[in-house]
Protein backbone atom coordinates (compact mmCIF):
# COMPACT_ATOMS: atom_id res chain seq x y z
CA UNK A 1 0.00 0.00 0.00
CA UNK A 2 1.46 3.31 -1.08
CA UNK A 3 0.69 6.30 1.08
CA UNK A 4 0.87 9.98 0.36
CA UNK A 5 3.03 11.95 2.76
CA UNK A 6 1.78 15.33 1.58
CA UNK A 7 -0.50 15.53 4.60
CA UNK A 8 2.38 14.91 6.97
CA UNK A 9 4.38 17.65 5.26
CA UNK A 10 1.45 20.09 5.44
CA UNK A 11 0.83 19.38 9.13
CA UNK A 12 4.53 19.60 9.94
CA UNK A 13 4.57 23.01 8.23
CA UNK A 14 1.56 24.10 10.28
CA UNK A 15 3.37 23.04 13.43
CA UNK A 16 6.40 25.02 12.26
CA UNK A 17 4.22 28.12 11.83
CA UNK A 18 2.73 27.48 15.28
CA UNK A 19 6.18 27.56 16.83
CA UNK A 20 7.09 30.78 15.00
CA UNK A 21 3.85 32.53 15.94
CA UNK A 22 4.15 31.48 19.56
CA UNK A 23 7.69 32.80 19.72
CA UNK A 24 6.62 36.11 18.17
CA UNK A 25 3.62 36.35 20.47
CA UNK A 26 5.69 35.92 23.62
CA UNK A 27 8.37 38.34 22.48
CA UNK A 28 5.91 41.00 21.39
CA UNK A 29 4.18 40.61 24.75
CA UNK A 30 7.37 41.37 26.62
CA UNK A 31 8.12 44.29 24.31
CA UNK A 32 4.63 45.52 25.30
CA UNK A 33 3.33 45.59 21.72
CA UNK A 34 0.00 44.19 22.76
CA UNK A 35 -1.68 44.59 19.37
CA UNK A 36 0.96 42.37 17.78
CA UNK A 37 0.52 39.88 20.61
CA UNK A 38 -3.19 39.69 19.82
CA UNK A 39 -2.49 39.25 16.09
CA UNK A 40 -0.14 36.31 16.64
CA UNK A 41 -2.50 34.81 19.22
CA UNK A 42 -5.27 34.93 16.63
CA UNK A 43 -3.04 33.36 13.97
CA UNK A 44 -2.13 30.56 16.37
CA UNK A 45 -5.79 29.87 17.07
CA UNK A 46 -6.72 29.98 13.36
CA UNK A 47 -4.04 27.38 12.62
CA UNK A 48 -5.85 24.77 14.73
CA UNK A 49 -8.96 24.46 12.52
CA UNK A 50 -6.67 24.53 9.49
CA UNK A 51 -4.70 21.64 10.96
CA UNK A 52 -7.90 19.70 11.69
CA UNK A 53 -9.11 20.34 8.14
CA UNK A 54 -5.79 19.21 6.70
CA UNK A 55 -5.90 16.06 8.80
CA UNK A 56 -9.43 15.19 7.71
CA UNK A 57 -8.56 15.84 4.06
CA UNK A 58 -5.30 13.94 4.04
CA UNK A 59 -5.80 10.97 6.33
CA UNK A 60 -7.10 8.66 3.60
CA UNK A 61 -5.19 10.01 0.62
CA UNK A 62 -3.27 7.33 -1.25
CA UNK A 63 -0.50 7.96 -3.68
Amino acid at each position, binding site marked *: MKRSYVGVAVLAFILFLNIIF*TQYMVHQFFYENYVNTLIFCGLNIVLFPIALFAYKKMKNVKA
Partner: protein
Amino acid sequence: MPSDKNNKIPFNEDNYTHNIERNNERKLDRRGFMKTLAGAAGVFAVSSLPWGAVAAKELMGLGEKEYPHKKITDVSKLAVGDSLEFKFPGDHDDAIIIRLNENKYVAYQNACTHLRCPVFWVKEQNQMVCPCHHGFFDAETGAPTAGPPRRPLPEIQVKVENGAIYAVRVKRYEA
Protein backbone atom coordinates in the same frame (compact mmCIF):
# COMPACT_ATOMS: atom_id res chain seq x y z
CA MET B 1 -4.39 -22.42 12.04
CA PRO B 2 -6.05 -23.66 15.20
CA SER B 3 -4.12 -23.02 18.35
CA ASP B 4 -4.49 -24.56 21.75
CA LYS B 5 -2.47 -21.85 23.47
CA ASN B 6 -5.46 -20.51 25.29
CA ASN B 7 -6.19 -23.85 26.84
CA LYS B 8 -2.95 -23.86 28.75
CA ILE B 9 -2.52 -21.22 31.42
CA PRO B 10 0.18 -20.00 31.47
CA PHE B 11 0.79 -21.02 27.92
CA ASN B 12 4.21 -22.00 26.94
CA GLU B 13 5.78 -19.07 25.18
CA ASP B 14 9.31 -17.80 25.53
CA ASN B 15 8.26 -14.17 25.52
CA TYR B 16 7.61 -12.27 28.73
CA THR B 17 6.16 -9.23 27.01
CA HIS B 18 3.65 -10.95 24.78
CA ASN B 19 0.83 -8.77 26.08
CA ILE B 20 2.11 -5.51 24.59
CA GLU B 21 2.68 -6.73 21.05
CA ARG B 22 -0.89 -6.72 19.98
CA ASN B 23 -2.21 -5.35 16.71
CA ASN B 24 0.77 -3.01 16.27
CA GLU B 25 -0.52 -0.92 19.12
CA ARG B 26 2.92 0.53 19.78
CA LYS B 27 3.55 1.47 16.23
CA LEU B 28 3.13 5.11 15.19
CA ASP B 29 1.82 5.02 11.66
CA ARG B 30 1.37 7.86 9.23
CA ARG B 31 -2.21 8.60 10.30
CA GLY B 32 -1.37 8.49 13.98
CA PHE B 33 1.48 10.88 13.41
CA MET B 34 -0.81 13.30 11.56
CA LYS B 35 -3.29 13.04 14.41
CA THR B 36 -0.52 13.95 16.86
CA LEU B 37 0.45 16.97 14.76
CA ALA B 38 -3.17 18.20 14.62
CA GLY B 39 -3.38 17.71 18.40
CA ALA B 40 -0.19 19.72 18.84
CA ALA B 41 -1.77 22.55 16.85
CA GLY B 42 -4.68 22.41 19.29
CA VAL B 43 -2.34 22.61 22.26
CA PHE B 44 -0.64 25.64 20.71
CA ALA B 45 -4.00 27.31 20.10
CA VAL B 46 -5.20 26.75 23.66
CA SER B 47 -1.91 27.85 25.19
CA SER B 48 -2.00 31.12 23.20
CA LEU B 49 -5.29 32.09 24.80
CA PRO B 50 -3.93 33.42 28.12
CA TRP B 51 -1.36 35.57 26.31
CA GLY B 52 -4.09 37.07 24.15
CA ALA B 53 -6.32 37.58 27.17
CA VAL B 54 -3.62 39.39 29.16
CA ALA B 55 -2.66 41.49 26.11
CA ALA B 56 -6.30 42.47 25.60
CA LYS B 57 -6.56 43.35 29.28
CA GLU B 58 -3.51 45.60 28.99
CA LEU B 59 -4.93 47.27 25.90
CA MET B 60 -8.18 48.02 27.67
CA GLY B 61 -6.26 49.62 30.53
CA LEU B 62 -7.53 47.31 33.24
CA GLY B 63 -3.97 46.93 34.54
CA GLU B 64 -3.86 50.58 35.61
CA LYS B 65 -5.05 50.21 39.14
CA GLU B 66 -6.08 53.33 40.95
CA TYR B 67 -5.52 53.33 44.67
CA PRO B 68 -7.54 55.43 47.08
CA HIS B 69 -6.06 58.90 46.94
CA LYS B 70 -3.79 59.55 49.85
CA LYS B 71 -2.82 62.94 51.12
CA ILE B 72 0.95 63.34 51.29
CA THR B 73 1.32 66.85 52.64
CA ASP B 74 0.32 70.45 52.12
CA VAL B 75 1.89 72.48 49.37
CA SER B 76 2.95 75.13 51.88
CA LYS B 77 4.95 72.62 53.91
CA LEU B 78 7.12 71.44 51.01
CA ALA B 79 9.56 74.09 49.81
CA VAL B 80 10.92 74.09 46.26
CA GLY B 81 13.89 71.72 46.05
CA ASP B 82 12.90 69.80 49.14
CA SER B 83 11.80 66.22 49.45
CA LEU B 84 9.57 64.30 51.79
CA GLU B 85 9.21 60.62 52.48
CA PHE B 86 5.80 59.01 52.68
CA LYS B 87 4.12 55.64 52.28
CA PHE B 88 2.16 54.66 49.19
CA PRO B 89 0.15 52.63 48.28
CA GLY B 90 0.57 50.39 51.33
CA ASP B 91 1.79 51.28 54.79
CA HIS B 92 5.12 49.58 54.14
CA ASP B 93 5.83 50.91 50.64
CA ASP B 94 8.34 53.70 51.08
CA ALA B 95 8.05 56.56 48.66
CA ILE B 96 9.60 59.97 48.20
CA ILE B 97 8.20 63.18 46.77
CA ILE B 98 10.42 65.96 45.43
CA ARG B 99 9.32 69.45 44.58
CA LEU B 100 11.46 70.29 41.56
CA ASN B 101 10.02 73.76 41.01
CA GLU B 102 7.01 75.84 41.86
CA ASN B 103 4.50 73.60 40.13
CA LYS B 104 6.38 70.41 39.42
CA TYR B 105 6.25 67.50 41.83
CA VAL B 106 7.71 64.08 41.19
CA ALA B 107 7.21 61.04 43.39
CA TYR B 108 8.78 57.61 43.26
CA GLN B 109 8.76 54.46 45.26
CA ASN B 110 12.20 54.93 46.69
CA ALA B 111 13.38 51.34 47.10
CA CYS B 112 16.47 51.18 44.90
CA THR B 113 15.95 48.89 41.91
CA HIS B 114 19.29 47.27 42.63
CA LEU B 115 18.89 45.81 46.12
CA ARG B 116 16.01 47.85 47.52
CA CYS B 117 17.99 50.24 49.72
CA PRO B 118 16.17 53.53 50.32
CA VAL B 119 17.01 56.21 47.77
CA PHE B 120 17.49 59.80 48.95
CA TRP B 121 17.12 63.14 47.28
CA VAL B 122 20.37 65.11 47.42
CA LYS B 123 19.53 68.72 46.72
CA GLU B 124 23.12 69.85 46.21
CA GLN B 125 23.76 67.26 43.49
CA ASN B 126 20.29 67.65 42.00
CA GLN B 127 19.80 63.89 41.80
CA MET B 128 18.64 60.91 43.82
CA VAL B 129 21.30 58.78 45.45
CA CYS B 130 21.29 55.26 46.78
CA PRO B 131 24.02 55.23 49.44
CA CYS B 132 24.43 51.45 49.59
CA HIS B 133 26.27 50.98 46.30
CA HIS B 134 26.37 54.52 44.89
CA GLY B 135 23.46 54.24 42.56
CA PHE B 136 22.21 57.50 41.07
CA PHE B 137 18.80 58.32 39.64
CA ASP B 138 17.56 61.20 37.57
CA ALA B 139 14.95 63.06 39.58
CA GLU B 140 12.95 64.13 36.50
CA THR B 141 12.29 60.62 35.20
CA GLY B 142 13.46 58.19 37.87
CA ALA B 143 15.83 56.61 35.36
CA PRO B 144 19.14 55.30 36.70
CA THR B 145 22.10 57.41 35.64
CA ALA B 146 25.05 55.66 37.30
CA GLY B 147 25.92 52.76 39.54
CA PRO B 148 24.51 49.24 39.74
CA PRO B 149 20.76 49.89 39.26
CA ARG B 150 19.54 49.29 35.71
CA ARG B 151 15.80 49.86 36.02
CA PRO B 152 13.95 53.10 36.72
CA LEU B 153 12.20 53.76 40.00
CA PRO B 154 8.43 53.16 39.81
CA GLU B 155 6.81 56.56 39.45
CA ILE B 156 3.87 57.65 41.56
CA GLN B 157 1.42 60.06 39.98
CA VAL B 158 0.54 62.97 42.21
CA LYS B 159 -2.24 65.51 42.12
CA VAL B 160 -2.46 68.93 43.73
CA GLU B 161 -5.86 69.87 45.02
CA ASN B 162 -6.86 72.72 47.31
CA GLY B 163 -3.30 73.30 48.50
CA ALA B 164 -2.67 69.67 49.34
CA ILE B 165 -0.71 67.01 47.47
CA TYR B 166 -2.30 63.62 46.89
CA ALA B 167 -0.77 60.38 45.62
CA VAL B 168 -3.04 58.88 42.96
CA ARG B 169 -1.52 55.79 41.41
CA VAL B 170 1.69 53.91 40.84
CA LYS B 171 2.96 53.56 37.30
CA ARG B 172 3.86 50.13 36.07
CA TYR B 173 7.12 48.74 37.37
CA GLU B 174 9.27 48.09 34.35
CA ALA B 175 11.05 44.82 34.90
